[in-house]
């Protein structure tokens, strides 16, 4: 029994990818790095988790009730969307920096999901620096980085719903911001100066899952 088997009694077939979920454009995708990320949290007493994606009820319930996390939800995509609609993207780096008010080394785990795919380089560097600052030693940061040029993808954000430790349900929702040009892996690593790559996987759905740890 895996850690997240408690979350759901219905475990998908391991090789089931992009399974149709009816009219809703939802799909199940395998994840490799999430399990390691969860194990980092379970080894901590009362871990503090920062989720940079939109709030997802089942995830909050799981992290709060089952893992005993204190969860901070700070939807960076919502901030991006606000700036796109207000045509103030030039102010985004400053706004991103101002949002991150956590103390140094105060967070055990960060779920960055794919938010870096939507940031310009300046904003990505600001966010990467701030996340590195607030992560505790031995803490973990999980990021998903697309590997498909933006023109080939629809303009949507994605909610990631944890099904179990090796499966995520993707829930796309519309947005005005397109994904930015694909980041090279070396450039991703440079965003988090002070963190080391613990695990990295190139998934069938063209996503690079990278787990960073703070030394």
């Amino acid at each position, binding site marked *: 029994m895996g850690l997240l088997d408690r979350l759901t009694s219905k475990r998908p077939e391991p090789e089931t990818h992009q399974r149709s979920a009816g009219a809703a454009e939802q799909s199940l995708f395998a994840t490799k790095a999430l399990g390691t990320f969860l194990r980092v949290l379970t080894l901590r007493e009362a871990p503090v988790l920062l989720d940079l994606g939109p709030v997802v009820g089942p995830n909050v319930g799981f992290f709060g009730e089952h893992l005993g996390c204190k969860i901070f939800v700070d939807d960076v995509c919502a901030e991006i969307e606000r700036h796109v609609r207000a045509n103030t993207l030039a102010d985004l780096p400053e706004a991103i920096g101002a949002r991150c008010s956590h103390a140094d080394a105060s967070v055990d785990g960060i779920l960055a999901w794919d938010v870096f795919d939507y940031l310009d380089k300046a904003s990505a560097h600001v966010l990467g620096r701030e996340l590195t600052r607030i992560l505790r030693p031995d803490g973990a940061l999980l990021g998903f980085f697309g590997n498909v040029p933006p023109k080939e993808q629809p303009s949507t954000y994605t909610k990631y719903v944890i099904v179990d430790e090796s499966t995520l349900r993707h829930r796309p929702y519309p947005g005005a911001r397109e994904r930015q040009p694909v980041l090279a892996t070396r450039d991703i690593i440079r965003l988090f100066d002070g963190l080391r790559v613990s695990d990295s*996987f*190139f998934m069938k759905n063209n996503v690079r899952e990278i787990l960073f740890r703070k030394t």
Partner: protein
Amino acid sequence: MWKRDEAVRPASGQSAGAPSSTSTASTHVEMNPSLEKSTVNIGKSVVIKGELTGSEDLTIDGQVEGTIQLREHVLTIGANGRIKAQVFAKSVVVLGEVNGDITASEKVDIRDNGSVDGDIVSPRVAIAEGAHFRGSVDMQRKGAAASPVAAKPAAVPTPAPAPQKVGA
């Protein structure tokens, strides 16, 4: 049922148009304990500034600014409710907007289109799809040590042929 004073007034009135001019003195709106089990409704034209305490379930469709204390009862923020307050209750259901921290001894339930900007402390939290939330959630798990998953080999995901290690 309600002791109304100048802090409880129709929004259509002159003072409701300029709520910031209201005195910041604490205002207690006490509910009748004899009406326990009943539910009180604050309509959407009502604006309250100050401290709201009671011993009945309460539904707010108006505006409240200050503090709300219903420690043994259920507070429902209706779809038209606009709350800018610290909230303490047994259970809180949010269909409208809350700007402030929520502490509930049983449950916080943010429904579809509900919005909370603030920190939540409650043993159970439910957030519906379509709800907005920004802040922290603390479910106060006490004494339950985190599961030592790393010590359980079965919990470790076995390598599957699908994903490949990134070479870089």
